[in-house]
């Protein structure tokens, strides 16, 4: 006979082994919190905004020029992260890291049909991130003239060091929320696994099915009132055991 596990059985298991679920969830959240707050070092972000726009002497807007500037952004994004720019920035700042390592800490983002793109630098030192962001964007502005033979790049917003910089990584609350969800899932999984592996008697049906013997009766868990036991002042101690005065019959 096949044994089917219903939704009620799953809920019963969860209810019965709630302490396992709570414990594992708590462990997951605590690990996540300790890793986020004590192990992972905070990473700060600095960003500059660069405008790609050909200097126009006339007051009218040239839409063809505008579109070509937008199309150029994708090319500029690649150039900005290339060794041509990054190695020069490293030399200027006397950084020990290679251009590949610096490249990993740089992100270039742009919005669709916009002439502005952002350069974002991440570093464990907030002031260093600001300096790198500004240096890279300035180097790019200088070098692009020679590379593309155009002078259509201008920095519209420089990176600035805030008084109390907020790290972008790690995000402890988010990490803990993710850990909570994972912890609950692992907890429920563990509870169901423990129940599946549990080869003990649960009820009368188990006894009858496994032993083929009649169940004379069941005794429920004793309430707390009976578990405490009752002491009496008349009880005497003899050796290690408690006995009472006997009355000869």
């Amino acid at each position, binding site marked *: 006979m096949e044994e089917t596990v219903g939704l009620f059985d799953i809920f019963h298991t969860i209810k*019965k082994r709630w302490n396992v679920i709570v414990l594992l969830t708590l462990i997951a959240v605590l690990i996540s919190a300790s890793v986020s707050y004590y192990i992972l070092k905070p990473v700060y972000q600095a960003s500059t905004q660069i405008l790609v726009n050909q200097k126009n002497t006339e007051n009218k807007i040239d839409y063809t020029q505008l579109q070509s500037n937008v199309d150029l952004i994708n090319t500029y994004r690649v150039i900005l992260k290339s060794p041509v720019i990054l190695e020069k920035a490293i030399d200027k700042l006397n950084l020990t890291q290679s251009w590949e390592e610096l490249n990993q800490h740089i992100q270039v983002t742009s919005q669709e049909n916009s002439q502005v793109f952002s350069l974002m630098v991440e570093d464990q030192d907030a002031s260093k991130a600001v300096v790198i962001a500004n240096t890279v964007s300035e180097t790019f502005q200088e070098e692009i003239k020679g590379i593309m033979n155009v002078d259509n790049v201008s920095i519209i917003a420089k990176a600035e060091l805030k008084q109390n910089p907020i790290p972008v990584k790690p995000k402890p609350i988010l990490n803990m929320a993710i850990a909570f969800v994972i912890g609950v899932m692992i907890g429920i999984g563990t509870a169901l696994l423990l129940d599946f592996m*549990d*080869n*003990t*008697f*649960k*009820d*009368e049906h*188990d*006894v009858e099915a*496994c*032993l083929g*013997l*009649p*169940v*004379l*009766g*069941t*005794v*429920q*868990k*004793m*309430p707390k*009132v*009976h*578990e*405490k*036991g*009752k*002491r*009496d002042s*008349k*009880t005497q101690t*003899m050796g290690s*055991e*408690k*006995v*009472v005065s*006997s*009355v*000869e*019959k």
Partner: protein
Amino acid sequence: MARKRNIKQTSTNSGRKLVTAIDPKSPISEQYRTIRTNIQYSSVDQEQRVIMVTSSGPAEGKSTTVANLAVTFAQLGKKVLLVDADLRKPTVHYTFGVNNLFGFTTVLTKQRPLESVVRETEIQDLYVLTSGPIPPNPAELLISKSMEQFIEEAKEQFDYILFDTPPLLAVADPQILANQCDGSILVVFSERTEIEQAKKAKELLENAHSKLLGVVLNHKEAQKNDYYYYYGAK
């Protein structure tokens, strides 16, 4: 003859164990009475007078079950003798708050007669025979001729003789005793007793040619749909 004991003034353990004596109207006491009734009707052709209570492993509630069953049988007005045949870790003397200087082993070794060692309890018609001094060879004592004589003598004086025994899988004593009793009861602890262990215990009892009266499921989680869940103690 027997010395009277006060249940209410026993060891701190007995309050938990003898719920049938302390709180006879409680749902748990009613459950023990149900077990008693089922034992009485378990065999139509032959009355089960000498009953052994055992389990596959330790701490499954044998002693608690046998003590409460003894009380429920005594409450019927039957003369009941509760014998502590657990000659390894005896507990009956703790439950009833009596000393264990003389007892079952004293009778088996013919040092004292049964009448002088049996103790009367506060519960009417309930008598206890503690284990007595623990011998180095319990199995040999139980297999001896004096054991048969003891059962015959006890049957003359009492309506029911209930034996509290050690775990089946731990020692051979229960198997030896099972062969000399009218019936055996296996106690299983809900969510603790392993199915395989209980199967082995059943096999051992069958090998001893013992009549297995049935199983008592102990420490079961109360469900909302259980009858006694609603039946409150007065």
